[in-house]
């Protein structure tokens, strides 16, 4: 059990380091404004590393490789979309939003449309999106700890929640900027080094039993492999296979040799399957069964609509993620913000290369994950499956540590943002209340993570993106580019888009618990909900034309006047001033 000690050591080091950096940085965090915008003296590169560090979550570190293992080329839409979202943010939102002086989404809603009720609605959805995003992070932590130890999944979730809440309470965002930049490089090392070394191993030692990834045949087990089925699953078999089974298959108890022909087979929980070396690996229903389908786009059982939905959600959802937007305020000016975005794209693109390689290697070396469906564990299990020595254990410890870095950094950013809006909009704003807000922001998703169903990490995160794309994307894009937007129109659009997206999310989670097959649009609703939100906002705004704010010309000019013109000066000053006084209910972003 050497692995456990190594990996646990890595995780402990990440937790201690994160917490230590947080406490060290917190000595300068004195006032609420320190907590919230971290001053503006952060360099573009440092800020880009911090943005990327915060952004690369469990879905990126574990989820992308897991989906590549299962779905093949189609899974690449996640990293492409996760990256392209920043382009949309840069083109449409970053500079005007910055000039508006509103540094959270509720601030923007109120500053642009002058409605306190709309502000409250926006606050509600910031909390919803933040929590939807936090749940898979905590579940990923549970999965990681359960994969490398015998501990129950809840232990990892609780651990991450506690470290994050303590870190945010004692550190605040100034510390978090430093911690996040560090976390990017940590995650990068933890994924790049194993990917690089394991790829060398793959090139130098081509096992005789392996199959090329382009062949129209399923992956094979290179050695005798025992798989424990923990939840009921339906497997599809593309090539007949002989195996040993103990438990229940197709409703019948079995104990001994079993022959599976082509087709689908139901396996009940607590069944142990043993495949001999050279046997073809079955895979969970819905994933491409053979390697040729795996390597072709849309080879998986994914519809065109599903992929379009995913593109909409990731491309348009990034701008609506609360923890992403606030980071752009740490740039000193618009030109630095553009530079930052460019660095972010480089850093993200570089990063995503490696989970893709690891996912492809997993198909050769850990095909048993296709049988259990726990493909998110691929990155964690691959090193020891490929290298049965100290190096394999060391690399496994590194990936486990990197995964924890991913949970901690993304969760910190999210808890930070949710706590921020809770403390300014819901609770009276003093530093102590910010701490109470942090506690609330962390505990609620923990409860949901422990009680809710576990989807694939990338899929859960995709639903958070869909909700953001269906609420804040139309609010921001129309708010910035269309004078005709009204408060009732914006509210109606947010309620329709967000309501539909949340309904789809809840349904998906409930159906997943029942183990059923989910309609593609429920699994990824953005193709419907985003246009619905845009159309609703447009139509209702047209109907309530009288409610166009009187100061719309001035607000629009402020947002679109060139950055160096200095029109944003008053708001910047205001932000600093108000963060200190911070009285709730004041129309504080109205000039």
């Amino acid at each position: 059990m050497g692995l456990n000690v190594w990996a646990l050591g890595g995780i402990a080091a990440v937790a201690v380091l994160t917490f230590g950096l947080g406490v060290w940085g917190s000595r300068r965090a004195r006032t609420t404004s320190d907590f919230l915008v971290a001053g503006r003296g952060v360099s573009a590169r440092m800020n880009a590393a911090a943005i990327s560090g915060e952004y690369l979550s469990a879905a990126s570190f574990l989820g992308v490789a897991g989906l590549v293992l299962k779905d093949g080329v189609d899974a690449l839409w996640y990293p492409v979309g996760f990256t392209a979202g920043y382009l949309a943010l840069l083109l449409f939102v970053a500079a005007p939003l910055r000039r508006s002086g509103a540094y959270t989404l509720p601030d923007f809603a109120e500053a642009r449309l002058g409605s306190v009720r709309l502000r409250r609605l926006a606050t509600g959805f910031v909390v919803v999106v933040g929590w939807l995003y936090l749940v898979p992070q905590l579940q990923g932590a549970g999965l990681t700890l359960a994969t490398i130890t015998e501990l129950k999944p809840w232990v990892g979730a609780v651990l991450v929640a506690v470290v994050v809440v303590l870190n945010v309470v004692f550190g605040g965002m100034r510390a978090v900027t430093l911690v996040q930049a560090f976390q990017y490089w940590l995650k990068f090392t933890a994924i790049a080094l194993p990917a690089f070394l394991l790829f060398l191993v793959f090139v130098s030692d081509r096992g005789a039993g392996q199959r090329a990834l382009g062949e129209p045949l399923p992956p094979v087990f290179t050695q005798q492999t025992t798989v424990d089925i923990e939840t009921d699953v339906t497997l599809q078999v593309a090539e007949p296979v002989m195996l040993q089974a103990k438990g229940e298959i197709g409703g019948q108890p079995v104990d001994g040799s079993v022959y599976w022909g082509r087709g689908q087979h139901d396996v009940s929980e607590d069944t142990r399957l043993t495949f001999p070396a050279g046997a073809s690996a079955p895979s969970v229903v819905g994933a491409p069964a053979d390697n040729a389908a795996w390597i072709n786009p849309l080879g998986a059982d994914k519809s065109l609509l599903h992929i379009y939905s995913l593109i909409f959600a990731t491309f348009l959802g990034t701008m609506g993620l609360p923890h992403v937007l606030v980071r752009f305020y740490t740039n000193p000016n618009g030109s630095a913000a553009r530079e930052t975005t460019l660095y972010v794209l480089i850093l993200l693109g570089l990063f995503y290369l490696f989970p893709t390689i690891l996912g492809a290697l997993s198909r050769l070396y850990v095909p048993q994950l296709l049988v259990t469906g726990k493909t998110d564990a691929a990155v964690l299990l691959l090193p020891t499956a490929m290298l049965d020595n100290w190096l394999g254990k060391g690399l496994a410890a590194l990936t486990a540590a990197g995964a924890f870095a991913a949970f901690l950094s993304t969760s910190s950013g999210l808890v930070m943002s949710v706590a921020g809006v809770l403390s300014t909009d819901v609770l009276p704003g003093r530093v102590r209340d910010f701490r109470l807000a942090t506690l609330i922001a962390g505990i609620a998703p923990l409860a949901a993570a422990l009680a809710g169903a576990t989807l694939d990490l990338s899929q859960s995160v995709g639903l958070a993106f869909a909700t953001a794309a269906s609420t804040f994307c139309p609010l921001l894009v129309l708010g910035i580019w269309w004078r005709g937007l009204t408060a009732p129109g914006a509210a109606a659009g947010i309620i329709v888009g967000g309501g539909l997206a949340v309904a789809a999310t809840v349904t998906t989670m409930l159906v997943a618990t029942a183990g059923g097959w989910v309609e593609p649009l429920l699994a990824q609703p953005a193709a419907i909900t985003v246009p619905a939100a845009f159309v609703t906002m447009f139509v209702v705004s047209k109907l309530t034309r009288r409610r166009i704010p009187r100061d719309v010309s001035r607000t629009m000019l402020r947002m679109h006047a060139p950055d160096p013109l200095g029109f944003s000066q008053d708001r910047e000053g205001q932000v600093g001033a108000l963060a200190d006084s911070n009285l709730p209910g004041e129309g504080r972003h109205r000039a």
Partner: protein
Amino acid sequence: MSTTERAAESGPPGTATWAEVQADPRFRELRRRLRGFVFPMTALFLGWYLLYVLLADYAHEFMSMRVVGNITVGLVLGLLQFVSTFVITTLYVRYANRRLDPLADEIRGEIEGGGR
């Protein structure tokens, strides 16, 4: 915080300046340039994404043509999605630095009388 920041709320630029900027043809030109880049580029970019998926669904033979070894046309085009995101961002940054910022500086210099 401090009185200077409080004062800044109602401070410069005054209403005259707001109107001045809005009426300035160069400001309109600036907005036109920004829109002229952002909207067509987004359409191009989204169109290219959606086209790729469409090809994947309806042009199986084309997409599974092999370029080298196991590398198919589909895979190459897929990787190009990444590259195109990066290229467009670079183009925008260069465009903004060359075509937007100098004009903005010009307007600002005139209105503020080279002050500050």
